[in-house]
């Protein structure tokens, strides 16, 4: 049925999207690669000179780079730990019948829809503020010394804020996968005398493995680029205590005006993200054939 005519039309229908995405990917990425080889200060346009790999050397040997890589990994790893473990627990809970399940489900997924600047500011001011925040009030009422969260544990605080937003995402996806679990299999295991723990580890968890992998990979892609939460709470500080790679590149480009070094950092971020992307794309591709 696919005549030459329809095949031609199909290609025509597809081309605007392909051309736009190609332009969006190739032109700026090519420019970044080019800038990364230049000595290029945004305040002195017209003075760019070829600089070889100097920007990469400068960016990588900057002490902030090591800190940023460590912070990026901690931020991604910490958030993944909280959201995947918490999300599995929550999904299993929401899968049980109880009164008001629908409402609780809405309450639980709500944080995902809060824009990052709002959630960061609400946590920073109204919850984590060392004098007037809810946490400080709770601590003093229980007889503890209140913690200045964002000053004393900046990265951990940001992990908490980001996890709050992503927990619903993990929960929803795991719940969706859970609901496709064949209940007969569980009943058969119960009849055979399996307890809830062994049912979880031998039936539920293997069934969830695919959904869990998808959650980990997709969250990683987004978490590598956490930015707004850092900008409005700590501005990367104190020092570089909460600077991740994304924030470091932003600071080099728009605060230090060093376009060359920022571009080199951008390329490094692209390489880092690609390592994850390869796995994710392979997984989703497999699904496409099924």
């Amino acid at each position, binding site marked *: 049925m696919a005549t030459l005519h329809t*095949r031609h039309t*199909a290609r025509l*229908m*597809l081309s*605007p*999207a*392909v051309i*736009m995405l190609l332009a*969006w990917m190739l*032109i*700026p990425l090519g420019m970044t690669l080019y800038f990364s080889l230049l000595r290029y200060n945004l305040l002195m346009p017209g003075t760019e000179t070829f600089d070889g790999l100097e920007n990469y050397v400068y960016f990588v040997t900057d002490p902030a780079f090591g800190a940023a890589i460590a912070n990026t990994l901690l931020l991604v790893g910490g958030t993944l730990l909280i959201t995947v473990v918490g999300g599995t627990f*929550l999904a299993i809970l929401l899968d*049980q019948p*109880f*009164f008001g399940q629908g409402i*609780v489900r*809405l*309450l*639980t*997924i709500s*944080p*995902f*829809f*809060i*824009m990052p600047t709002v959630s960061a*500011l609400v*946590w920073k*001011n*109204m919850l984590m503020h060392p*004098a*007037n925040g809810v946490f400080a*009030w709770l601590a*003093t009422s229980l007889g503890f010394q209140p913690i200045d969260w964002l000053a004393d544990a900046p990265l951990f605080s940001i992990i908490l804020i980001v996890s*709050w937003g992503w927990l619903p*995402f993990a929960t929803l*996806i795991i719940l969706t996968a859970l609901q496709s679990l064949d209940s007969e299999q569980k009943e058969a295991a119960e009849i055979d005398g399996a307890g809830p723990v062994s049912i979880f580890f031998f039936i539920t968890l293997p069934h969830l493995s695919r959904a869990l992998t998808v959650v980990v990979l997709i969250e990683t*892609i987004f978490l590598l*680029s956490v*930015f*707004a939460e850092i*900008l*409005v*709470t700590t501005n990367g500080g104190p020092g570089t205590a909460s600077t991740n*790679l*994304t924030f470091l590149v932003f600071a080099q*480009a*728009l605060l230090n005006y060093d*376009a060359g070094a*920022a*571009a080199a*950092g*951008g390329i490094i*971020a*692209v390489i880092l*993200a*690609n390592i994850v992307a390869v796995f994710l*794309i392979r997984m*989703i591709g497999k*699904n*496409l054939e099924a």
Partner: protein
Amino acid sequence: MARAVTTQRKLVFTAIGWLIGILLFFPIFWTILTSFKTESEAIATPPSLLFFDWTLENYIEVNTRSDYLKHALNSVIIAFGSSLLGLLIAIPAAWSMAFSPSRHTKNVLMWMLSTKMLPPVGVLVPIYLLFRNTGLLDTLVGLVIVLMLINLPIIIWMLYTYFREIPGDILEAARMDGASLSREIVYILAPMATPGIASTLLLNIILAWNEAFWSLNLTAADAAPLTAFIASYSSPEGLFWAKLSAASTLAIAPILVLGWFSQKQLVRGLTFGAVK
């Protein structure tokens, strides 16, 4: 006996479920509550829960003093503009891949997905400079284009997974009966594709509304959507929590309600159809 156990079990899960649900929702609840307090009550310790003088003063002040409406309008234009423009480009693309697949279709889809994996900082410098040199910095048009492009892969993927569920046999049958392409679209495809298109639109409005990276970096006073406007409350010039809360409540309320309706689409859209 068995019945009693299940009721008891149900009550336990009810207690745990509600406790966790309320804890997770608390920051949102607290923001909404604080938006009705006066500034001094907003920072009072111990915090007042319900017994305070409820006031609408913050909402009035946010609207009159800070150009709130302009930024809200920017958000609406950017979210709807980028989503509708994205649909316009994505519908034909997804359609052709779903109904006339070639041996390259899978690779094209995978490649589109890979563009979504590009971290925004990888292209921050050139996009910023291109925008500055073409006068697109701090304009609605500029942000609409960028947000359309970053969400285009998700739109195409979501539509593709919906379109693929439309049985191709129906089209064949219609063609056999002599239906023209336009009739095919109006009478058969449009009614079957509309729910999928609507879901895609909904999810993308949510994503565009909450986008922060490009909104913060490419806009200033003129074109800033709410995500960027709210960030201006982070400057430490005093504790204006009640006003921050009022502005935040207005910014999150519409999208929160939309989000509640989009649970299923969210899973499908954000996992690129890998989990349904």
